[in-house]
């Protein structure tokens, strides 16, 4: 299937040669996406396990160190991401109905929310870097006396950093979707990329839903 000769709209689109039908292709993509998400869960599970082990090893350090995080910023980002999940779901639904303008509008909104998330994250990171609240050996913050506190921030930066990378990748995919949606490629017959991006985006949000309480609300 080649799209290089010109624009292929949803109605004209054929499925790849080795599938029986467009539906079969869609089902295969969906299964592939879910398997991919399983690999993502396992990828993050390594970091969650690391976090859990540090909680067991150094419970009071984890509690003291987490006060250096601003829970209000974290909460704001949680709200932002939940809103972005809503707009993403609306974009998928618009794609299934073939409402081109709505697809573009909702994906742009999702994109803007993601930008908001990254802006908040930027302020958090730059404040920490300025203060010297850094992972492991790079730590040079004087005011917190808790031993091993740098380890908490190793986990914090690794987890939020990899999560942030997932957000950025999602944003790049959204720009690609907007380009294709403007060419009227999505409709009731073909909306696979929008749906798959939706699944991915909900996963990215879900990771944050776990990260926020684990990192910002340690009790």
């Amino acid at each position: 299937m080649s799209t290089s000769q010109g624009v292929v709209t949803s109605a004209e689109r054929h499925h790849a040669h080795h599938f029986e039908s467009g539906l079969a292709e869609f089902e295969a993509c969906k299964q592939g996406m879910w398997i991919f998400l399983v690999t993502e869960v396992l990828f993050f599970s390594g970091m969650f396990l690391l976090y859990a082990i540090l909680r067991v090893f150094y419970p009071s350090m984890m509690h003291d160190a987490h006060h250096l995080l601003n829970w209000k910023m974290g909460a704001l980002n949680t709200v932002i991401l939940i809103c972005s999940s809503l707009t993403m779901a609306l974009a998928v639904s618009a794609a299934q109905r073939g409402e081109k303008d709505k697809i573009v509008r909702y994906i742009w909104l999702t994109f803007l929310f993601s930008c908001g998330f990254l802006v908040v994250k930027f302020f958090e990171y730059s404040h920490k870097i300025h203060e010297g609240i850094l992972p492991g050996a790079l730590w040079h913050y004087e005011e917190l006396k808790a031993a091993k506190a740098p380890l908490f921030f190793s986990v914090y930066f690794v987890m939020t950093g990899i999560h942030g990378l997932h957000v950025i990748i999602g944003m790049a995919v959204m720009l690609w979707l907007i380009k294709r949606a403007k060419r009227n490629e999505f409709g009731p017959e073909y909306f696979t990329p929008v749906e798959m991006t939706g699944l991915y985006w909900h996963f990215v949000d879900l990771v944050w839903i776990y990260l926020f309480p684990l990192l910002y609300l340690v009790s």
Partner: protein
Amino acid sequence: MSSHSSEGDLVKHGDNYINHSAGIKSWLNTLDHKRIGMMYLFTVMIFFLIGGFFALGIRLELFSPGMQFMTPDTYNRFFTYHGAIMVFMVIIPLIPAAMGNFILPMQLGAKDVAFPRWNLVSYYIYVTGALIAASTLFLKGVDTGWTFYTPYSIRSNSSATFVLLGAFIMGFSSILTGLNFIVTIHKLRAPGLTWGRLPLFVWALYATSIIQVLATPVLAITLLLLILERTLGIGVFDPKLGGDPVLFQHFFWFYSHPAVYIMILPAMGVISELVPVFSRKPIFGYKAIAGATFGIALVSFIVWGHHLFVSGQSEFANFVFSLITMFVAIPTGVKVFSWLGTMYKGSLRFDTPMLYVFGFLFVFTIGGLTGVFLAVVSIDVHLTDTYFVIAHFHYVMVGGTIMAFLGGIHYWFPKFSGKMYHESLAKFACWLVMIGFNVTFFPQFIVGTLGMPRRYADYLPQFTNYNRASTVGSWILALGLFITAYNLFRSMKTGKAAGDNPWGGLTLEWQTTSPPPFENFKYDPVVTEGPYEYKGDRIGMGINA
């Protein structure tokens, strides 16, 4: 086929995947699973050659006690490269990505894998990762051992970061292959090809893919954390900063133990294909073998702790891991006895692939049984980090995976190329491989029990004879492999035409022309029975009949 039936007409007489389009670009940009499989095969073979070079170097240095021509530092680099290349770049992609890519869609009666573009992407990811890792050969090298144990790997003044990055990248290739295969098996089976009629090679690749998908991401995060440890000093595995080096071992083996089964399950799948074809009998215990495959895959995830018996792990954990490890022997035994049951009263034929099956059964059983020794904590404490362990896993990985691979490559060579290899030369090479392999590794069992430790560049004089035998064996093994390579390469050009189904195989890949046409089949296949229904006049089919 509805909207594409015209494509059937494109399959002209003599059209096949090799001559379907010409030029190097048509290969580099191909989405055809058969071409991608062949590209994987050739690339993996290049790394097999490099990894083998390091192995021969190790054996040459160990020919006599004292240092011969290496410094201990060079020796450390040799065994690290040998291990890392053979594990990450050779054995893991060898059967699934190279052979499986070619054979799996054909055995399913499909035109391609579910995601052909991702298939090509996985190949280039593999090449990128492999080149990044291999580039360190020209930098400072790497001396950590392929297991990258902390804290040494954090402080090692070498190019370990690039090797870690390379292995990290190659992991994505492995994940993509596994994902692609799972979806292909679910969604692209030919009409009538029910789950109970799947060839056992497909079942093996299915279980392998599940392990690849579930275990590789854990390796990815482990290697990433170690890279960050080396570059930013995050400290999670570094005792100096409050981290836990044993945690690294847990993370690492949570992937790398299942990875052992990524290496052996596809090999068992190949054996399950060869045994009924060359016994001219239906497979004995089809469901038992398929079930045992999943039994092994399941158990593979809960035995990693047997690599940590001497790490200071609790005695209770040692007991549990020891017990579960011994369970691996049950499904493995089920398979071995099912293969023997298939041969019983069969019309055995001793073509080269079948010789390798016998080789596999002989050496793999030794490898498996010595694995049971090592599962016993009290014995393992004495044998840990000795040559007994080296011999054990070479009997499983080389004796198991490489033997099955060689059997498979001779079996499917006529399908890949349309030509037949030189039979007596292949048999001669098979004997050299078998003898060379056993002469190399059997003495290592003995010298291991006598206490010779692994990963040392030097040894005590009383171990000299064992090491000499081992080194001479490595030359015989190498000669056998070179003759095999020569035979196959030469036969691609000068071999006589093999015909479409020289072995009388009943699986779908044999029901099309050799080499197969662009989309595998001239007519969409329909399946009406299981893959090994040898009865009546089918028993006599094939070249020797």
